[in-house]
């Protein structure tokens, strides 16, 4: 939605600004000014700039979001091992502290830029923009942005990615999409990670996870993957190849 033509007046708020509405009149001696401005505009503007930067370099950018410990870095390690020979990959790592995850990625021979957010619990478009200054995108096909492990805040900040990939690890329980609807509504692909644990967990049913995802009106595909055993990785890798080709 833009903030200029009025398309941001939705059926949920139009009564506030309509003639005779609660906001249409004020007491005398004052002036009421209609603004209709989104409060995340500064971030969204930067995100648009980042997206243009990726597109100029024909790079697919993916934003990985999940709880801490859902296996984002392990998934990236396994993905780099499988695709490293055919695609040029780079990673932007977001964590509150440490370079540990970036080191794990660099050990796989892939450039990784660490963003240490301090106490900030999510990445925003400005942080990603700063990181991109340190990352040469020439020759790169695919950039993973590994967001801070958090199912709340990252969902509200566009980074300039082409797709959001949400990871839901099996020990977390199958009702996460119902508990964190803002996050899972934003997902373009959901990966049920640590699927090798399904046989020992009696409280995670992938079909129920899918039904919770549908209940928030999200048609995104769900893939079961295990970075550890390699099971299900083929489908994820195929999805990546397809998306990279469609960007190039």
């Amino acid at each position: 939605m833009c903030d200029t033509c009025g398309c941001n007046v939705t059926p949920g708020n139009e009564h506030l600004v309509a003639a005779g509405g609660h906001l249409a009149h004020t007491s005398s001696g004052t002036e009421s000014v209609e603004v209709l401005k989104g409060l995340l505009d500064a971030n969204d503007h930067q995100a648009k700039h980042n997206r243009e930067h990726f597109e100029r370099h024909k790079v697919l950018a993916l934003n990985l979001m999940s709880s801490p410990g859902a296996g984002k870095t392990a998934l990236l390690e396994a993905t780099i091992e499988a695709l490293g020979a055919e695609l040029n990959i780079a990673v932007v790592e977001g964590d509150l502290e440490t370079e540990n995850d970036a080191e794990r990625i660099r050990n796989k021979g892939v450039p990784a830029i660490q963003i240490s957010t301090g106490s900030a619990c999510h990445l925003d478009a400005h942080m990603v923009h700063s990181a991109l200054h340190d990352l040469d995108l020439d020759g790169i096909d695919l950039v993973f942005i590994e967001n801070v492990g958090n199912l709340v805040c990252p969902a509200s900040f566009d980074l300039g990615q082409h797709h959001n990939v949400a990871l839901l690890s099996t020990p977390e329980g199958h009702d996460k999409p119902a508990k964190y609807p803002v996050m899972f509504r934003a997902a373009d692909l959901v990966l049920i990670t640590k699927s090798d644990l399904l046989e020992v967990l009696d409280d995670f049913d992938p079909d129920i996870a899918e039904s919770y995802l549908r209940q928030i009106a999200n048609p995104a595909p769900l893939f079961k993957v295990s970075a550890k055993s390699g099971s299900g990785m083929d489908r994820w890798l195929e999805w990546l190849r397809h998306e990279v080709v469609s960007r190039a």
Partner: protein
Amino acid sequence: MHELAICQALIGEVLQVARAQHAASVSDIYVSVGPLSGVEGPLMQNAFPIAAAGTVANEAKLHLQATSIRVCCEECGEESEVPANRLVCEHCGHWRTRLVSGDELMLQRVVLENTGSGGQAHV
């Protein structure tokens, strides 16, 4: 979520409007907040005075207008009002719906005092 940062962005927008209208002070700020915006109203009310301190909006009252979550069904075309984690059509039960409202986070309007210009202005 990031209610203080959101309030700082809000105050930035409000001050821009106040400057453009040569206002001495801001008395009221109206923001619409959808349940799917990721922002909590009470936290925003707590953070607002911190962001407004020392500005012409120091004394302003923040009015948060909670919007309802409404979806339009792609199967039957009907609209329904729904809870945040069940965006399913209330009429036919189908899950393929489009969000019509509920994720807004928007500065709607400000009320200014002692402005340099008269009448109502749109920015």
